[in-house]
């Protein structure tokens, strides 16, 4: 009896180390939505990166899925306080997509099919910190979870991981996105509990 409960507590403690302040663990995958779920046919899907000088880099679905894939396993943290550990994804590192992009911009505004936007410093999208993912848990990414493809930026609260992502605009000045203009924190670091403006 003692051994079992000690063991159980041990495992809990390790999980707790991975849980940012104020968060709790979930096993399911809650869906939060701010609007109707866009349905994007793959033959009309495209992903673009627009630089601050007006240059557009463009990928069709075929071109995107031909890029080298990675399979990140990451913990995700939603600002509504749930966290999910060891989520498994498949997609393209943004380092690959930014390979040929010449830019001196500091800021990125991510925009999605359906009109959603979110902003973050460009450096948070690079160096192995972000992916454009189209598969989750071994399956095609469902529309309600952001399919055909969503952004994955697991070191920030999950609202930064835009669903139904359509492109990234690089900007010299920071341009707050959908939730960032409605009271949520501009950066959103879960380990510093940056939930709301002023946190």
């Amino acid at each position, binding site marked *: 009896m003692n051994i079992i409960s000690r063991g159980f507590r041990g495992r809990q403690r390790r999980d707790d180390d991975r849980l940012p302040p104020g968060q709790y663990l979930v096993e399911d995958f809650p869906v939060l939505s*701010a609007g*109707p779920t866009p349905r994007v046919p793959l033959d009309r899907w495209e992903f673009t990166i627009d630089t601050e000088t007006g240059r557009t880099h463009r990928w069709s679905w075929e071109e995107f899925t031909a890029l080298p894939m990675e399979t990140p396993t990451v913990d995700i943290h939603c600002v509504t306080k749930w966290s999910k550990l060891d989520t498994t994804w498949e997609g393209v590192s943004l380092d690959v997509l930014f390979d040929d992009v010449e830019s001196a911009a500091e800021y990125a505004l991510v925009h999605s099919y359906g009109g959603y936007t979110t902003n973050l410093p460009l450096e948070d999208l690079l160096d192995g910190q972000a992916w454009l993912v189209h598969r989750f848990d071994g399956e095609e990414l469902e529309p309600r979870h952001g399919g055909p493809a969503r952004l994955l930026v697991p070191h920030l609260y999950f609202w930064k991981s835009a669903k139904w992502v359509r492109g990234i605009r690089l900007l010299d000045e920071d341009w707050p996105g959908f939730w960032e*203009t*409605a009271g*949520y924190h501009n950066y959103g670091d879960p380990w510093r509990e940056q939930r*709301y403006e002023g946190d």
Partner: protein
Amino acid sequence: MTAEYLDGNALAGPLGEIFAVDVTAATGRCANCGLTGPVASLHVYGPDPGLVARCPGCDEVVLRLVRGPGTAWLDLRGAVSLRLDVPE
């Protein structure tokens, strides 16, 4: 499958925290398409991370309400105006 959204009556409680009048009974005009109708007819998504009320005509955002500890943020940029009946 359940509906993705609720109707605008879902705003009554949260907006009742802020306004002395019942805003769901107000008539609003969508800044995007011009559709005029009661706030109660909006399509409301949420409540988390925030309430997002969209125009039933064009799906554009009319109103957003985020509730943090001790603070509420209300964005009405998608509404040209709200017409309210106020007691004399």
